[in-house]
């Protein structure tokens, strides 16, 4: 048996050894998060920016449990419903990351949300914020719906990568519309559809199971970003491991080239030489 090493994911100046990006929210305790991140094999993690809540009731900060030399830290703009707020939060995140001298300091995972019920992106606000942040020197990883036209607009606005949602954040519904995700990937990555094979597409949000990760990768995504699927699993550490393996499986599965779907059966054993019915 040979083990083919999966090449790293290149996002401008950041090289991610793993194609899983894992969120740090919702874990029952920091220790579980720390071990789950390790088991997931991820090399980039997302964090949120919030009012002074520097330490927990035991005097511990989340930064005590994230090795800044090991992980690229990607601040998000979660909770923002306007472009103005998202830009503001992104700049605050950058100031924090610059103090940590982390490579994620010029990066932002941009979310401009439409409402609290769906947590789906507001396309107008997202585009506006993306343009402003790119002009300000940010590398923008942009959360989007699975609309291929919007995905192309975000790319054209200068985003470093587009991150279409598999399904709404935290729902665990997986890849709700594989055709839409595939269209996003085709438009962004396939030259015959105006794409660039090197342009990164990371499926973000809604992942509930390892097979969801595999499906996203089998569709041709470059990576998957998830949080709740690991953090709220009964055993987050075991689930993190499963997500890592699923990501690898999907990566190889896509490149191996699946068989076409057929209506009629096709026997795997030869008809010639059969003795049945003689």
């Amino acid at each position: 048996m040979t083990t083919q090493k999966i090449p790293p994911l290149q996002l401008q100046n950041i090289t991610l050894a793993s194609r899983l990006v894992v969120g740090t929210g919702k874990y029952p305790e920091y220790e579980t998060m720390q071990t789950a991140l390790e088991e997931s094999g991820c090399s980039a993690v997302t964090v949120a920016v919030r009012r002074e809540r520097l330490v927990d009731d035991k005097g511990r900060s989340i930064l005590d449990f994230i090795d800044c030399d090991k992980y690229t830290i990607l601040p998000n703009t979660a909770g923002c419903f306007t472009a103005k707020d998202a830009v503001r939060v992104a700049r605050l995140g950058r100031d924090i990351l610059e103090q940590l001298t982390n490579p994620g300091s010029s990066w932002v995972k941009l979310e401009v949300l439409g409402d609290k019920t769906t947590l789906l992106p507001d396309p107008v606000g997202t585009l506006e914020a993306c343009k402003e942040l790119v002009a300000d020197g940010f590398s923008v990883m942009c959360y989007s719906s699975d609309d291929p036209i919007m995905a192309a607009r975000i790319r054209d606005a200068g985003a470093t990568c587009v991150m279409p949602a598999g399904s709404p954040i935290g729902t665990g519904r997986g890849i709700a519309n594989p055709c839409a995700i595939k269209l996003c990937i085709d438009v962004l990555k396939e030259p015959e559809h105006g794409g660039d094979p090197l342009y990164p597409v990371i499926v973000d949000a809604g992942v509930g199971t390892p097979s969801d990760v595999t499906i996203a990768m089998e569709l041709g995504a470059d990576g998957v970003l998830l949080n709740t699927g690991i953090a709220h699993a009964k055993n987050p550490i075991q689930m993190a491991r499963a997500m890592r393996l699923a990501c690898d499986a999907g990566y190889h599965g896509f490149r191996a080239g699946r068989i076409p779907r057929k209506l009629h059966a096709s026997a795997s054993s030869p008809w010639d030489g059969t003795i049945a019915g003689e």
Partner: protein
Amino acid sequence: MITINGKEQPFTKTTLQELLVERNLAIEICAVEVNSILIPYKDRDNHNLRDGDTVEIVSLVGGG
């Protein structure tokens, strides 16, 4: 008075850095806005606060 993260309190400190020291935040990793303008961490020593200022102090928390 000065408003810090939405709470009003008496105005006593002159510089932003002094305010952070008072709140035991001087060595913590955080970012600060005064009146909705980001004050880069390198400028905190030189930024004088004024009565009526609104200060936001933020840090990193878990998120997706």
